[in-house]
């Protein structure tokens, strides 16, 4: 909020976003709004697992567009260490449909591994191509002082790391972490008043897919909710995938980033592995993706991730990204996938 040059009494509402089953504090908006001095203004909690703050941004935008409020804070956070590790294990075991899937011992990596196997079978995507995504994101994490991992890794490091859920290995998976990020949204009038470098929300998309994997087939090589959310956001912003200067995509696993390339239209269907292999998502190439380290290497504080993506884009669109600055970046896209792929929020920002 210091960065945004607004004081707490100018914030007309706050939206607190987290994956609530990890919070020891029930209904965290209560304590967070109090601690931040955001009473008596409206506050409440929003949850869409990993896409919580992406959804929060949509709600905040509609509060402003509908005229209810002029300034809204979207506060994303996660504090995974509140629960004991036995409790976390138990919660993690209920990440899918608890009636028909969790009773067989599903895990988050397993769900995405099912997509990985399917994508590899269908398009010939390789474990080396997956590894390349982790290598890129760890490389950029070394340039982001806020990232959790600060060491470069090699394709070999990835391939040799411990198997988690075949074909996904340790370095194919992001690490849950503690963290928080806040977005201040304002109406055009207020935004122009408080800053000389406003960044505008140009497109919004939100879509869902069935939670049960069995309701999603016939193939597991794409996330329908990503495709639908992207379509909405591109339409609203009146741009095409090729107009995007920098993207933050939800790389909870390496396979997810590769599928995202395709779902977002950064490459043809089935060419995501190739795009990674060719290094086309590095700074200076076709489309820079997750050059802040992504979830894989920056860390994944579940409820904060969507807001953190927006922070990276805002820095880029303001030309404040230092060493990783995309020259002349004018359009940024954030892709925030929730849970095992049942929610997706896509946000397009413009200078």
């Amino acid at each position, binding site marked *: 909020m210091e960065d945004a040059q607004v004081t707490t009494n100018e914030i007309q509402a706050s939206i607190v976003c987290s994956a609530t089953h990890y919070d020891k504090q029930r209904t965290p908006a209560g304590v967070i709004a109090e601690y931040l001095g955001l009473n008596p203004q409206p506050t409440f909690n929003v949850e869409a697992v990993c896409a919580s703050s992406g959804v929060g941004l949509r709600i905040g935008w509609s509060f402003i567009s509908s005229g209810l409020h002029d300034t809204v804070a979207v506060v994303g956070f996660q504090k995974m260490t509140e629960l004991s590790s036995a409790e976390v294990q138990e919660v993690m*075991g209920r990440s899918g449909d608890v*009636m028909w899937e969790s009773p*067989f011992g*599903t*895990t988050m990596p397993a769900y995405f591994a099912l997509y990985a196997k399917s994508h590899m079978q269908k398009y010939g995507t390789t474990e080396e191509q997956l590894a390349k995504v982790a290598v890129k994101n760890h490389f950029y994490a070394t340039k982001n002082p806020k990232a959790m991992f600060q060491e470069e890794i090699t394709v070999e490091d990835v391939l040799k790391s411990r198997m988690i859920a*075949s074909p*996904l290995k340790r370095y194919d998976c992001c690490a849950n972490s503690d963290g928080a990020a806040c977005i201040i949204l304002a109406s055009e009038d207020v935004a122009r008043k408080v800053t000389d470098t406003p960044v505008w929300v140009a497109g919004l998309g939100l879509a869902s897919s069935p939670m049960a*994997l069995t309701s999603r*087939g016939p193939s*597991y090589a794409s996330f329908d909710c990503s495709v639908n959310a992207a379509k909405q956001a591109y339409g609203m912003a009146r741009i095409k995938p090729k107009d995007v200067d920098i993207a933050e995509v939800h790389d909870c696993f390496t396979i997810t980033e590769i599928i995202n390339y395709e779902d977002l239209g950064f490459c043809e269907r089935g060419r995501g592995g190739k795009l990674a292999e060719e290094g086309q998502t590095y700074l200076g190439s076709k489309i820079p993706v997750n050059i802040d380290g992504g979830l894989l290497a920056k860390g994944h504080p579940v409820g904060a991730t969507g807001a953190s993506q927006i922070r990276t884009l805002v820095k880029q669109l303001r030309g404040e990204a230092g060493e990783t600055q995309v020259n002349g970046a004018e359009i940024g896209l954030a892709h925030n996938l929730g849970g095992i792929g049942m929610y997706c929020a896509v946000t397009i920002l413009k200078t």
Partner: protein
Amino acid sequence: MSFAKFGKVSYVSETKLQEFETKLEAGKIMGTKCKKCGRLYFPPRADCDCMKGEMEWVELSGNCKLMTFTTLHFAPASFRYEVPYTLGVAQFEEGPTVLAPLSKELGEDEIKIGMSLKLVPVELMGGRMIYELKKLESQ
């Protein structure tokens, strides 16, 4: 009514589908079908998407094809002594799909997307009931 035995662990305290478990114990894999629109559901549902129909129980052949799979080396707390184990998604010849464990008798290198499998009821120690995907030959 609730599932007293279904699943290695069960989380759901109440269900309108208790009969599924009874039939599973009797060796049958049951889906439900909408009497109005004819849609067939597996996993079974008590209500149809069309919001118009009564449902009836229908037995499935269990014959299916593997769509994707993964072998887990890390597991939730209650499954920690079972790793590695393999889960897969398979499509029944009748149309619906199922997420289920693959029988441990299948070696990881034998498993291929597209292979034919059969979903069969399995009783675990302690009387709990699950279903598993098995090789066709092993029937």
